[in-house]
């Protein structure tokens, strides 16, 4: 399996960028998909959700903490019955928006079966002003967009919580994580 990694250093910028908008092409993808997840929550709905997230449940308590800084969450997942139902060009309009100075592509991982890009929007200090994930598999396409303030700790928690089993990598021989 040939795997390429592209790591791009974050670029500091104080330029204001508009919130990311999902291109109209995604509506056509929904019509082709056999299963779709469609979550769109603006700041009002997030505030309302925050009032119903329980402090007694560990996952919900963490979610409440993350949501407190967010202005919006958008998730679209399309599952298709067969390969070839979408093309990377369908995401061009989205990538164009992510070329704005405030955004940096910090991860690009490509393999035979999967292509994942993660973009972060710089905010003050060590905080992140937004995140976009584009994950493309042969029969599934997922776009995640979080806007608002996320701390690096919250980001780390997202990758190891919420009922998702932590997958342990094979132990390295003393080298730190890349």
């Amino acid at each position, binding site marked *: 399996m040939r795997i390429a990694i592209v790591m791009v250093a974050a670029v500091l910028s104080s330029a204001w960028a508009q919130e990311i908008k999902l291109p109209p092409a995604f509506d056509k993808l929904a019509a082709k998909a056999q299963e779709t997840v469609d979550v769109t929550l603006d700041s009002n709905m997030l505030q309302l959700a925050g009032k119903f997230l329980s402090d007694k449940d560990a996952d919900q308590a963490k979610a409440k903490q993350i949501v407190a800084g967010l202005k919006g969450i958008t998730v679209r997942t399309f*599952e298709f019955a067969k390969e070839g139902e979408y093309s990377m060009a369908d995401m061009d309009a989205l990538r164009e928006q992510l070329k704005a100075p405030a955004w940096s592509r910090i991860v690009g991982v490509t393999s035979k079966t999967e292509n994942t890009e993660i973009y972060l929007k710089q905010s003050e200090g060590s905080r992140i002003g937004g995140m976009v994930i584009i994950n493309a598999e042969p029969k599934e396409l997922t776009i995640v967009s979080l806007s608002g303030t996320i701390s690096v700790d919250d980001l780390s928690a997202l990758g190891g919580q919420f*009922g998702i089993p932590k997958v342990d990598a094979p132990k390295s021989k003393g080298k730190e994580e890349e």
Partner: protein
Amino acid sequence: MAAAAKVVTPDFEVIVREHQSMVFSIAYHFLHDRPAAEELSQDVFLQLYKSMGALESAEHVTRWLRRVTTNRCIDQCRRSKLMPRIGLDQVAEPAIPAGLPDIMLSRALSQLVASLPANWRALVILKYQEEMETEEIARALDMPVGTVKSQLSRALDFLREKASRMLRETV
């Protein structure tokens, strides 16, 4: 002067008994697990109890129940979406010989329906259990009518292919 309050005194238990088969059956045909279907159905009625003030008529209650039950079933499927599951092309035909008695055919088809992706499952159940028209299904699931028609058609093609031996139909 404000109008008099609408005075409604439904006996909630009567409402539960009237709709329990519908709600339980949607959940059971979706999840194919009786305890899970009962738990989900109870949650739906608990939610209905809290929401009764917002419902205007008996017909509204029926539509609300179908919609909420189906959405809860779909959400439950999606919550387990990160668990390993098989793809459509790996769904095996039930190992049942052709010309089998109707009850076995029913069970086999019921299993096949429960193996469909969540959206397709919802469409098939609402069409065949609840005998809903396409437009009604589209409103219940908040989907365009065209999408309901195309997805239902694909779901039925899939079921027909998998069940063809059982039904002695030409694919």
